[in-house]
């Protein structure tokens, strides 16, 4: 299976190379990107986003696992690639192997365009130099049917909701209607692991890894188990929350913006979007940041920086939102004529980002091929504690050991918000 995939990727690499221009045309910019990969999306990137770029830009999509391979081959061979667009977690491993150029001269651009300070800090990838410019972002937010709003606990506001209020809210609806209307994407391809590692756990412990078996973590699991009594039991079948929201099985849900957007787009008047709840350690949320980086020894670094400047213009950020459903990273007024559903999401994303107690949590960094195993630890802990009723203390002790094995195997240092580590990250 892997071999055939590798062969396929090889074919893609070959076709990507053949689609790239000859290296001689240094006035052009070749833009290698792990986003907007499917044929149609890539075509839209070319015809709707990059068509007005100040420098002629050739857009080359690439599969994420192939990104370092492709860049390395290019650096040693044909030298065509100047600009790289990829997720934060995909760019981070490129720095230690020397494939990216520092972008310290772009710091002023970040300030000028009003990119939030926490995003700018992340873009330094833990070092002194700015290694990429944030380009666009997605994240996970909450959605609720307007039918549920009347049951909000007294004094609770959507923008400042806490996890205990969320539980109370769902309990209120259940008491009034007999239905369990809170829903999570805990199905086979749902993103429950992201909720646990990026939202719930860090909201209680301040981190993802180091405090995995802390007393705060045990409190979190006990609270969540209690909250689960009001969760729709079909949650273990839900992959995209937009579907149960639209069918009315679920009134309150958490999910990725792209997996909620059908509900907001189809019935913008029936749903509200709002930031994730807060726990004792703040309102943890997981921004999915896509950055723009310049390849080391790029054939056209100046051109690449012109394209970066162009893509960060507020109007291009709005165009990017329309074309890709990725949200702006710069300060931008949401235009009136934007799809109303998308507007709802854009406002919630901005609110979540700007909340006074907001704590961004990174997608796991540096785990490489162990990322899936790491995610599974969270869903296994959830299964054991919440669904199978095993003793919390024993489960977190056991899973914490497994987590250490995964971290050791990947030799992954801690990532934000866990404090930086010397060497491999250690579970306390």
């Amino acid at each position, binding site marked *: 299976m892997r071999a055939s995939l590798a062969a396929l990727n090889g074919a893609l690499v070959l076709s990507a190379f053949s689609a790239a221009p000859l290296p001689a045309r240094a006035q052009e910019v070749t833009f290698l990107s792990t986003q907007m990969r499917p044929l149609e999306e890539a075509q839209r990137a070319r015809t709707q986003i990059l068509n007005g770029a100040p420098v002629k830009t050739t857009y080359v999509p690439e599969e994420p696992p192939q990104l370092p391979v492709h860049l390395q081959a290019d650096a040693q061979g044909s030298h065509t690639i100047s600009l790289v667009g990829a997720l934060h977690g995909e760019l981070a491993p490129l720095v230690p192997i020397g494939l990216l150029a520092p972008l310290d001269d772009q710091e002023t651009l970040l300030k000028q365009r009003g990119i939030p300070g926490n995003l700018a800090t992340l873009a330094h990838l833990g070092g002194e130099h700015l290694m990429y410019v944030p380009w666009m972002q997605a994240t996970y937010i909450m959605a609720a049917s307007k039918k549920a709003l009347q049951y909000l606990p007294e004094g609770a506001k959507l923008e400042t909701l806490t996890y205990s209020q969320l539980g109370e809210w769902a309990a209120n609806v259940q008491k009034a209607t007999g239905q369990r209307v809170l829903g999570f994407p805990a*199905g*086979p*391809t749902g993103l429950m692991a992201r909720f646990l590692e990026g939202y719930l756990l860090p909201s209680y412990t301040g981190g993802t890894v180091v405090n995995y078996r802390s007393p705060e973590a045990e409190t979190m699991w006990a609270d969540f188990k209690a909250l689960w009594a009001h969760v729709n039991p079909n949650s*273990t*079948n839900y992959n995209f929350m937009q579907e149960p929201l639209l*069918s*009315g*099985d679920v009134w309150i849900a958490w999910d990725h913006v792209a997996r909620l957007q059908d509900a907001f787009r189809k019935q913008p008047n029936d749903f509200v979007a709002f930031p994730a709840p807060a726990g004792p350690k703040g309102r943890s949320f997981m921004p999915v940041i896509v950055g723009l980086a310049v390849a080391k020894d790029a054939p056209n670094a100046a051109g690449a920086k012109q394209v970066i400047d162009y893509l960060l213009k507020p109007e291009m950020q709005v165009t990017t939102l329309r074309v890709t459903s990725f949200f702006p990273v710069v300060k931008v007024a949401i235009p009136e004529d934007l799809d109303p559903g998308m507007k709802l999401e854009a406002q919630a994303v901005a609110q979540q980002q700007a909340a006074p107690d907001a704590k961004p949590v990174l997608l796991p960094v540096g785990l490489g091929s162990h990322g*899936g195993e790491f995610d599974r630890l969270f869903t296994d802990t959830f299964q054991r504690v919440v669904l199978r009723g095993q003793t919390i203390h024993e489960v977190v002790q056991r899973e914490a050991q497994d987590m250490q094995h995964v971290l050791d195997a990947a030799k992954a240092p801690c990532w934000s918000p866990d404090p930086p580590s010397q060497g491999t990250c250690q579970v306390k």
Partner: protein
Amino acid sequence: MVSQTAAAPSETPLREAGGGGVSRRTALRPYILIAPSLVFLLLLFFIPLVQTIALAFRTSAGTGFGNFGKVWNDLDFFDAVKDTFALVVVAVPVQLALALGMSMMLRHVRRGRDLILWIWSIPLGISDLAAGLVWLAILTDKGYLNTALFQLGVIPGPQSWLTYETPVVLFCAILTAELWRATAIVFVILVAGVQLVPKEFEEAASVFGATAWQRFRRVTLPLLRPSIQTALILRTVLAFETFAVVLAIGGTNFPVLISQAFIWQNQNQDYGTAAAYAVIVMVVSLAATAVYLVALRPRAGEPA
């Protein structure tokens, strides 16, 4: 074969004169004709099979049983084994009984036989996932079943059938979907077998006073044995691989071996452990096939 022996005498002078070229070509012909399918299977079946086995035994630390250790420690492994076997042990016999009944009934139909055959075979043409989604639409909280029950006044509101809180109903739902979807393949094989059973045998039996059940039990069933064997092997192997229906209806509430392979490959991006699951399914399927081959072999004195 027949044409070869018939052609042999006329070829003799040729062989004497020019050294055997034609007959060798004739002898090679079947192999040449078979070759494309062999090459096809070798490329698209045997090579991936070897690769999968290699992948299952390859870990970051070298070659060994590490991936099988991960399978053993997988939270859902024992549930997956239990669920997979439960499904096979219940579904396959029921499917065989249903298909036997259907093909026996069809023997006595004069008019509209083709239409019935056609309708009964419809599920064969439907993809696993589509079948799963059809049943999901029926059984989900606001699905057709609950709507009907609600309108009949049986239930006061949406009732969940497919959750971890209702494991028995969930199992029955998956079983029903599997019966609906996959009985047709057993049926089609048995219908073909039934058509080969000469009616004279049964007529002779009834002349000697055998009852309908005796005729079925003593005459038809033994003559159907080769078809039953084929159907059972095929159906059991496929039942061990049941996946899309289960995933659509059961989600993570009803793990089976193949859905675990899928989850380890797709969600966990751990190809080695996924391959280990695949190898386990292969070994189990081969064992089941061997059991059928031995258990249903012709006994002494019976026709093969």
